C-alpha cells in the first residue's frame, strides 16, 4: 500500500499536486503555522539585534475578583482556596446565580472563615452577564479579574495577569488556560494540546500583531474604568468576546499574559465537546457579522486598521474559508475518486508537517517547554481532531446564519433570552 502511494505521488504532475494541496497551503498553513513561524523569526531577530530590555517595575494594582456560578457547589471551594491570599490587595465577590445545589452555602461557609469576601445571591438564575454586572457594581479595585467558579489559579497568576495593565492603553488581558483533567482520556489530552496552541500561542501572536479579539471569561483581567465605560457585559452567550470587541471599539488595546495560568475542566466526551464548541463557534456570526459589523466599516468614526483586519480575518477564515475548505475537499476527492486514500494520505502528511512546525513554535515561546514537549505524541492526531472541529464549525455557522440558534441557547435563562438584543 505504501509503495503504491509513493508511486502514485511520484506520478502526479506538479499542477495536480498544487490542486490537491491548495486548500491547505492557502488557508490553514498561512493562518496558523506560517504566522507562528514568522513570529518566531521576528523574536529571534529581536533577541539577536536588540539589547535586553530592562524589566519593568512590578505593577500591583488592587484587584476585585468576580466569580459567577450556577450550581458549582462541588468546585467553588477549591476555586476560592486557589485565589485566597494569592495577592496582597484583593477583594473577592462571589455571585450565586440561582443555584439549587447549595453553592451559596459553601461560599458562605468560606466567607465565615475569611475576611474580604462579598457574597451576592439570588434565588432565580439571571445569567452570567448580569451576574458579572451585578458584581461589577460592587467592585472597588482598579482591576477586575473574572474567574469561572470551576477554575483554579496557579500561584502568582494574578500578579502576572495584571502586569500588562501597567500600560494605560490596555483595557483587558488574556491569560493562559491549562486543562485540569487532561489525564482523563484522549479527548481531554487533545484539548490540552489545542489549548496550548490556540489560547497560549495563538493569542500571544495575535496580541503581538495587535489583533487579539478574545479574552476567556474563565480567567481574564480588565481595567475597571474601561469596563464601566462600556457599561459592563452584554447578554451572551459569548459575552466575553463581545466585551472585548466593545473595548476595542472604545479604543483600548487587548494584551496577553501567556505566563498567567489558570486550570479549567474540559469536556470528557466528544458529544459534550461538540455542544460546547458549537456554542462558541456561533459567536462569530452573532457578534462579528451582526452586532459588531461596524468594526469593518471604513466610515465608522472609531475605525482602526487593526479592528478592520481582525474582523476581515474572522470573516475570511471562520466563514468563507470554512465552507470553501469543505467544498474544495469534496471536489478533489471526487476528482480523484479512484485514489481517495492516497489523496487523504497526502493531505494528512502535509497537515501533520505544518502541525509539527507549529509545535516547534510553541516550544520556542513556551515558558514551560519541557512540559509541552511531552505533548509531541499528539501532533499526528491533531489532523483528525481539527477535522472534527471543522465539522462542528460548519454546523454552528450554518445554524446561526439560517436559524439564529443562539437565541435558543439555554446558557442564557429564558426570561433573559426573550428580552435580549436580536441582531
Amino acid at each position, binding site marked *: 500500500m505504501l509503495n503504491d502511494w509513493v508511486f502514485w505521488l511520484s506520478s502526479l504532475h506538479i499542477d495536480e499536486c498544487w490542486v490537491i494541496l491548495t486548500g491547505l497551503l492557502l488557508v490553514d498553513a498561512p493562518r496558523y503555522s506560517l504566522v507562528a513561524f514568522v513570529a518566531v523569526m521576528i523574536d529571534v531577530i529581536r533577541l539577536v539585534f536588540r539589547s535586553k530590555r530592562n524589566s519593568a517595575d512590578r505593577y500591583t494594582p488592587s484587584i476585585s475578583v468576580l466569580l459567577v456560578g450556577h450550581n458549582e457547589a462541588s468546585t467553588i471551594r477549591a476555586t476560592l482556596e486557589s485565589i485566597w491570599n494569592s495577592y496582597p490587595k484583593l477583594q473577592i465577590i462571589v455571585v450565586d446565580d440561582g443555584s439549587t445545589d447549595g453553592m451559596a452555602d459553601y461560599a458562605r461557609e468560606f466567607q465565615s472563615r475569611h475576611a474580604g469576601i*462579598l457574597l*451576592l*445571591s439570588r434565588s432565580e438564575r*439571571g*445569567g452570567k452577564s*448580569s451576574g458579572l454586572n*451585578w458584581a461589577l*457594581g460592587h467592585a472597588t479595585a482598579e482591576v477586575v479579574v473574572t474567574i469561572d467558579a470551576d477554575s483554579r489559579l496557579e500561584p502568582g497568576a494574578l500578579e502576572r495577569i495584571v502586569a500588562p495593565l501597567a500600560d494605560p492603553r490596555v483595557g483587558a488581558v488574556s491569560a493562559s488556560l491549562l486543562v485540569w483533567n487532561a489525564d482523563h482520556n484522549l479527548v481531554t489530552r487533545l484539548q490540552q494540546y489545542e489549548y496550548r496552541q490556540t489560547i497560549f500561542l495563538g493569542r500571544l501572536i495575535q496580541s503581538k500583531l495587535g489583533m487579539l479579539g478574545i479574552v476567556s471569561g474563565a480567567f481574564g483581567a480588565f481595567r475597571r474604568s474601561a469596563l464601566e465605560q462600556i457599561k459592563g457585559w*452584554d*447578554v451572551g452567550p459569548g459575552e466575553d468576546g463581545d466585551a472585548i470587541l466593545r473595548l476595542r471599539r472604545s479604543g483600548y488595546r487587548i494584551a496577553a499574559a501567556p505566563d498567567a495560568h489558570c486550570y479549567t475542566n474540559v469536556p470528557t466526551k466528544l458529544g459534550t465537546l461538540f455542544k460546547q464548541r458549537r456554542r462558541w463557534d456561533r459567536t462569530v456570526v452573532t457578534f462579528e457579522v451582526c452586532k459588531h459589523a461596524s468594526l469593518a466599516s471604513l466610515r465608522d468614526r472609531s475605525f482602526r486598521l487593526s479592528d478592520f483586519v481582525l474582523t476581515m480575518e474572522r470573516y475570511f477564515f471562520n466563514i468563507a474559508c470554512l465552507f470553501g475548505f469543505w467544498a474544495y475537499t469534496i471536489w478533489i476527492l471526487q476528482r480523484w475518486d479512484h485514489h481517495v486514500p492516497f489523496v487523504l494520505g497526502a493531505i494528512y502528511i502535509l497537515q501533520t508537517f505544518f502541525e509539527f512546525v507549529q509545535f516547534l513554535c510553541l516550544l520556542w515561546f513556551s515558558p514551560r517547554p519541557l512540559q509541552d514537549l511531552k505533548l509531541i505524541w499528539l501532533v499526528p492526531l491533531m489532523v483528525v481532531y481539527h477535522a472534527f472541529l471543522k465539522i462542528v464549525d460548519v454546523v454552528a455557522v450554518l445554524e446561526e446564519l439560517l436559524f439564529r440558534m443562539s437565541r435558543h441557547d439555554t446558557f442564557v435563562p429564558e426570561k433573559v433570552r426573550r428580552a435580549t438584543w436580536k441582531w
Partner: protein
Amino acid sequence: MSETIVIADDDRDMRRGLEFRAKKWGYDVIPVDDGERACELLIPKDGPNLAILDRHMPGADGVAVCERVRSARPRSDVFLMMLTGRDAAEDVAGALDSGANDYVTKPYNDVVLKARLDAGSQSIQATSTALARIEPTEPPETVLSRVLHDQHLVPEFDTKSMTYGFGALSSQVNDWQKDGGLSPVIMDRVKTCPDCNGLPTFRDGCPKCGSGQVQENQMLHHFRCGHVDTRAAFQSSNGLECPKCLTSDMIVGVDFEHVSGIQSCGNCHWSGDKLDLVGQCTQCGLRFPGADAVNSELVGYHVKRLGVLAEFAAH
C-alpha cells in the same frame, strides 16, 4: 381558620400586589385605600389583628392610624406593620414611635415581608392564648384546685413581667418538688435574655451595632442588556429607564426584575451582604446578639403525690 389582615394603601398597584401576596400566604384580606377606613376596621376590639399600613395616605396617614388604633388596642392585641419609603429614616422612626410593631421599606422583599407578617401573627396568637389561660387576679385556691384536678402544672407567660412562671403558686413549687409532690418535666426550650432571663424579641439587624435601621439597597436587573444597578440609577423623569441601553416603559417580570443587594445600616453606616439576628429583651430592654441568647428550659411538673398539695390546700 386563616387570619384576617387589613391592607391600607392609596396606591392601587401596591395595594393589589400586597393583597395578592397575602392571599397566597393564607391570609384573608380586607383592602382599603385610605386611613379613615382602616381606623374604622382596626379600632374595635373584635377587629382584625393584623394590618399593613402605607406611611403616606390621604386623610389619616399611617402614623395617625397607628396612634388612633393604639389608643384603643395594645401592641399585643393588634400587629401593625408600616410601609415606609426607601431612604426615609425619619419615616421609620416616626412609624415605630407612633405604635407600629414593625416596618418594611419599599420596594419590599417578599420573603422578608412574609417572615415578618408570620412572626407578628404568631406573636399575637401566642399572647392571646396565654392571656386566655391566665386570670391575674385569680385566687391561688382556684389555681391550686385546677392543678389538683389536672394533675400537672404548666408554666404560664406573665405579660407584666414578660417571663414564664407559676403565678400565685411560684413560691410553693420548689417546696413541693423537694417534698416529692411534683416531678419536673421539660416542656419546651426558649431563648431568653442573657441578663434577666426575660423573653426577648428577635429580628434581623446590623451585625455591627444591632440597629434595626437597616435598608436593603435593592437593585434592578434589566434583561435586555444584562445591566444591574440601583433603583435610583434607573429612575428618570419618565419613570424607569435603563441607564445602559436607554430602554424605557419597562414592565417588571417581563423586562426587568428586582435583585436583592447590599444591606446598609442607617445608624453606624455598616454595609454588607448579611444581617445578624439581634435580640432585645422585653423586660430589661437589653439589646444583644442573637447568638448570646440563653437557651432556657421551660419546666413544668407532674403531680406525683397528691397528698403534698392537698395538705397545702387544706391549710
